[in-house]
């Protein structure tokens, strides 16, 4: 294939002036931007969010190359409950009815604690301190009133004093 063919593009052009084509394209692009909020704001939001991250002190604490870094993204009661499971070196656990009933708590604990497995048949049970269990206490965690819990997640832990890890027969 010859070089001349490289610049060949088949197109049925019109005899109208170029400025008309460009004006039409500009008008259509303007309409698109006017009708889509994401088009207008996406670039600004991206720039602002990335700049804020680059300047944020928290960013400098995030270490890509350290195991478990970034777990702070979990709500503190969840994070400390997972640490309770790790500290006691257990391999599997299950959740009390109150904890299972809250999808947020249940999912965050199960995926956050992995590879400690969630198993319905496990003898280790995690329950809130105010839940009655007929099992032997292994360890307990008292929630710190100073923990900062995001407003949307606060209702899940309202009135809860802490959690207990118990071993059931």
């Amino acid at each position, binding site marked *: 294939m010859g070089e001349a063919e490289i610049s060949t593009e088949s197109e049925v052009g*019109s005899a109208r002036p170029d400025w*008309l084509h*460009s004006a039409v394209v500009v008008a259509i692009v303007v*309409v698109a931007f006017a009708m889509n909020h*994401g088009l207008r704001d996406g670039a600004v*939001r991206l720039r602002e969010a990335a700049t804020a991250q*680059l300047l944020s002190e928290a960013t400098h604490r995030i270490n*890509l190359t350290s195991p478990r870094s970034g777990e702070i993204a979990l709500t503190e009661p969840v994070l400390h409950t997972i640490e309770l499971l790790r500290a006691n070196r257990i391999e599997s656990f299950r959740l009390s009815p109150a904890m299972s009933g809250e999808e947020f708590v249940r999912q965050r604990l199960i995926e956050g604690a992995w590879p400690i497995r969630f198993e319905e048949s496990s003898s280790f049970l995690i329950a809130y301190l105010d839940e009655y269990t007929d099992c032997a206490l292994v360890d307990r965690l008292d929630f710190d009133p100073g923990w900062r819990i995001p407003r949307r997640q606060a209702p899940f832990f309202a009135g809860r004093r802490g959690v207990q890890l118990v071993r059931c027969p």
Partner: protein
Amino acid sequence: MSAALELAPLYLLGIGLAAAAPMLEALASAPAGRRPEQRWATVAGLFAIGILADQLLVLWLRSLSVALAVGSVLAVAGFYLGVRARIRSKATRSSADTATVWIWIFTLCVATIVFLYAVLILTLPLTHWDARSIWFFQAKIIYFAGALTGDSPWSTLEFAHGDYPKLIPTLAAQLADVAGFWNETLPKSALLVLLVPAAIGVVAFTRRPLSGAFLIATLFFPTYGVLWNGYADGYLALYAALCVLALGRWIDRRRPGDLLLGLASLGIAASLKHEGSFFLVCAAVGTATAAAVARANPSTCADSRPAGPWSAAWIAAVSLAGPLTWEITRRAWGLTNDLGLSGRAIVTASSRFSEPGALASIVKALFQGAELAGAIVPLGLALVAAACLRVRIPTGFWLSATAATLYLVGIIGVYLGTPHELAWHLATSADRTALPIFAIFSAAAFQLLDSLEKSPGAAPIGGAK
């Protein structure tokens, strides 16, 4: 920066070269391949098919370390084959590249956009619901098992949706495996691995200032929220748009780089989410429609030596082997989808269809969620303008328009048949599931705008038209 992330581009490009081996001669010797848009299309296509081939290794070999070892050997072989094809093609090279200034300007713009997204991807830990509970929890399961096996509790942990395609989870698990630990940020770099080839691929279509700016804005800004937070929807939208753009231009020009990018993007879209498999069907129907239009109106012009049918079939096979393998594996492991898209869904859909307001609420949620009017209205205006100004409608437009329309109808059908409460399902997902519809309609609008801008005598600065 982690070594895992630094080595990933070389590894994936090498595997891509090996996977595309039968097409390398055609890619290296195509005269149009020296144009920057074809170079970008080829590089993006090689990266994308490398990602797919890597996933295929994990799906077939199961063990992450074995897949990595085999992949490394393939990557070395791929670079050898690539260099050999490049050297052999030198004899056919004749003149300097016809560089297009706008492509380089847009390359800088897109590089900046990728950098900004990279900052968010690499500095913000996983916080969003589906990212934590689905994609990266699956990755965590694969990482700690050291393999993708049926022994993992895919079906018991229902919220993890174990049946979902495994491209993002396997990539994330591999990155953590190479690093040797799990944390809440490094596995997220799998998103960056997906973003880079998509960005390079998008640049390959930006030859003119206005339409180029439109394409970049429509693909990278409405998807702002879902390109960095660990959701797969933004990437499905990007790769679906890339697929229709690349296959559309391939139908017009028969350049092998476009075919490679189009098929690899199709494979990635089908490997990201279940909707990707449906997009595959839409793209196939769209391609058939565009091919029929091209046959009826043979005004298109191939400006490259087309890839041979066997090499094209090979690339298609590598691209689609991953989604097919996962579908077979998923069925073998007894993993079913929570939407239960079967006979029951059809009954639900038909009853909901007759329910007053249900269809309207779905259409409204989809149109409002992703502001679809922002793509469909410009598309309609561009179509009218093309007709009035007697500008040729590119054949690829029929692919994009058909695929987008079918996809829209299909997503409406999925919502009609959902076993979940409709209002809840729409509220939690419509804005995300409509993104690929927005992206494909935008791609169709771009194809028309590009043709409108490409009026006779208006050559882009510094390059051929």
